[in-house]
């Protein structure tokens, strides 16, 4: 009978001859302590960004809310106004006009932008000859300067521009930027054009998570394209669509650059958005307290709409 020479016992799981454990954890350190240490290190990495956020985002936002209770003159005088700026705002027809313009722009721009993002993403999600080219072309407006695009679109929408010629048979010829009714649709067209590429990119990424087998199984069962989209793809896109809806709504509530470049709020205040009003009051008329009150109203408006969207779109998640 042979005996197997006694081999030294392997160290206990996790232990090493040098006293360290295989997982690199020093003896005696529990997972909890380690997690705490890692959290501290992570916090250190996050700290610079957090401090910058505090200094340049959170701080000014709080200061803005504070400023809305004062009348501030650039010479340095601060007069306590209490709620006067808000009372003035609520009684100001221009504020309600700007509120209506912002709402009208958002109501048109957000759904169209979302629908177009999804449609374009579905169109280019599968690799086909030229799909990369189309993805790049659709994304191009996102990285195009709006100032430059605005100048070109001003010509496109002018009386002698191509848009007027295209729309003339429908009785919608003439300069859309000169029309108090059509100026918002004109801005929506440019706004959607400049933003749908971003949404498309996000949706393409989300579509990678939709199992192909599910769609194929549905196809085998005889489901049409719409039903496959409606019952298989769309439910999985809901978190993405919620994210996009919030982002697009926030961006459309803050519409400024397009208005600044193309219409300056005109004609007759028909495209005078809330942020443009804020800009006018703050930087043109140096009425900072009133401008800050408009900013607070805009914040409340965005928050309320985001909460509603969360309830409606994000209900199932």
């Amino acid at each position, binding site marked *: 009978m042979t005996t197997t020479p006694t081999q030294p016992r392997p160290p206990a799981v996790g232990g090493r001859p040098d006293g360290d454990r295989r997982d690199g954890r020093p003896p005696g350190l529990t997972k909890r302590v380690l997690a705490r240490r890692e959290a501290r290190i992570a916090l250190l990495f996050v700290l610079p960004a957090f401090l910058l956020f505090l200094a340049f985002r959170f701080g000014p936002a709080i200061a803005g809310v504070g400023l809305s209770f*004062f009348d501030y003159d650039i010479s340095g005088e601060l007069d*306590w106004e209490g709620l006067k700026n808000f009372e003035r705002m609520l009684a100001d027809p221009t504020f309600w006009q700007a509120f209506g313009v912002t709402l009208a722009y958002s109501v048109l721009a957000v759904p169209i932008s979302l629908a177009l993002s999804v449609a374009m993403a579905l169109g280019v999600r599968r690799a086909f000859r030229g799909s990369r080219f189309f993805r790049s072309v659709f994304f191009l407006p996102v990285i195009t300067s709006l100032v430059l695009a605005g100048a070109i679109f*001003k010509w496109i929408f*002018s009386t002698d521009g191509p848009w007027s010629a295209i729309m003339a048979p429908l009785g919608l010829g003439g300069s859309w930027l*000169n029309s108090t009714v059509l100026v918002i649709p004109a801005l929506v067209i440019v706004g959607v054009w400049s933003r749908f590429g971003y949404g498309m990119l996000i949706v393409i990424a989300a579509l990678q998570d939709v199992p192909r087998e599910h769609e194929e199984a549905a196809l085998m069962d005889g489901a049409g394209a719409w039903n496959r989209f409606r019952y298989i793809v769309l439910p999985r896109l809901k978190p993405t669509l919620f994210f996009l809806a919030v982002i697009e709504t926030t961006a459309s509530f803050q519409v400024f650059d397009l208005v600044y470049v193309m219409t300056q709020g*005109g*004609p007759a205040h028909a495209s005078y958005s809330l942020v443009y009003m804020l800009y006018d009051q703050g*930087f043109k008329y140096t009425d900072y307290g009133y401008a800050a009150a408009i900013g607070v109203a805009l914040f409340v408006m965005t928050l309320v709409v985001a909460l509603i969207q969360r309830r409606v779109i994000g209900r199932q998640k």
Partner: protein
Amino acid sequence: MRYTKTITAAAVAATAALALAGCSGSSGGSDGSKKTVTMWIYPVIADEAKHKGFWDETVKAFEAEHKDITVKYEIYPWANRDESLSTAIAAGKGPDLVYLIPDQLSTYQKSIEPMDSYLPSAQKKDILDNVAESVTIDGKLMAAPILTSANALMCDAKAFEAAGVTDYPKTWDDLEKLAPTFKEKGIYVTQYFGSPDVTLNMTFYPVLWQAGGSVYNKDGSKVAFDSTAGTKALSLISDFAAKGYIEKDLISTMPALEQTALATNNVACTWQSGPSDVTSFWGEDAIKILPPLTDEKQVSYGTVGSLAMLKGAKDKEAAGEFAAFATDAENSKKFDLASNFFSPLKSTGELYADDPIQSAIEKTIPTSKVGELQPSARAVMGVLAPEIQAALLGTKTPEQALKDAAAAAQPLIK
């Protein structure tokens, strides 16, 4: 409850000054160290190299006479100048001297150090009376004038030739009579920039003044443009818009000048553009300068460019010395000739006797007006301009538009 930041700032400054005095017994400048003056200017001379050349030379000459002062200037773009200036002042980062025009003087008056005690008496007396009046608020000279301008009536000889018209307009009636003739040839009788970012000083106010109206009442306590004169002025322009006598796209947008009818010799006369805008399109020979149109009055818009000192100037004496130097007769004349503007001083005399275009404009300076010197002037323009657009687009009558604008403007007057 009233808080005054300046009091706190003064207290802090006083404490700091006392501490410094206690430590060193001397302060910057008096111990021989160099004082620095900063100045913000805008492209008044369109050619950047020429503009820089002027200020480099002026600063060099000044520093040669004032060894203890260094002048640093920056040429900022015209666009958004109020935004950057007001932000800088609010942040305490404003320059010592800045180029301002009269309506800005009233907007920034709380932040401006009056110039009375910094300009020599002889230089103050040399300022043309109407110019001095335009930079004076509450009896104080708010800035040192360096130029004047006037927006005379400018007509395109080629457009007149194309329409077969030989008589140039002198009154509104003349303009109204000529309009159909020009329209037959596809030429607009005039132009109107309705975009809210174009100052009404250049567009509507001259017509309002010519009709005998004014923006404010005499003591500035109420707006007065919703008057019979105001309605008459706005009716003239909106009638032109309705009949197609002005380019409709310009009511709401401000395209590049080369994209407008003005650049293609399709506008007969304008008071809203000047020779420097059109020379490259029309050629000098086609430019015909005429006195401002007359209705009840003959008046046009003109401005005064000036160097103002901000209250935050670190060394007011040094800044004042440079302002006085840069705006004296010799330097003003050089600056005005280089920028194609006109002198605000009596002693410089006529600058453009040999230049028919400039000389004709120079002659209209006595009939020019600098606009409204009220702190609310720009905010009032902000509510009036959209209402004028509404009248020009026919969505409101001129009376209603002015009435609505007056209702919106009144609360802005503080």
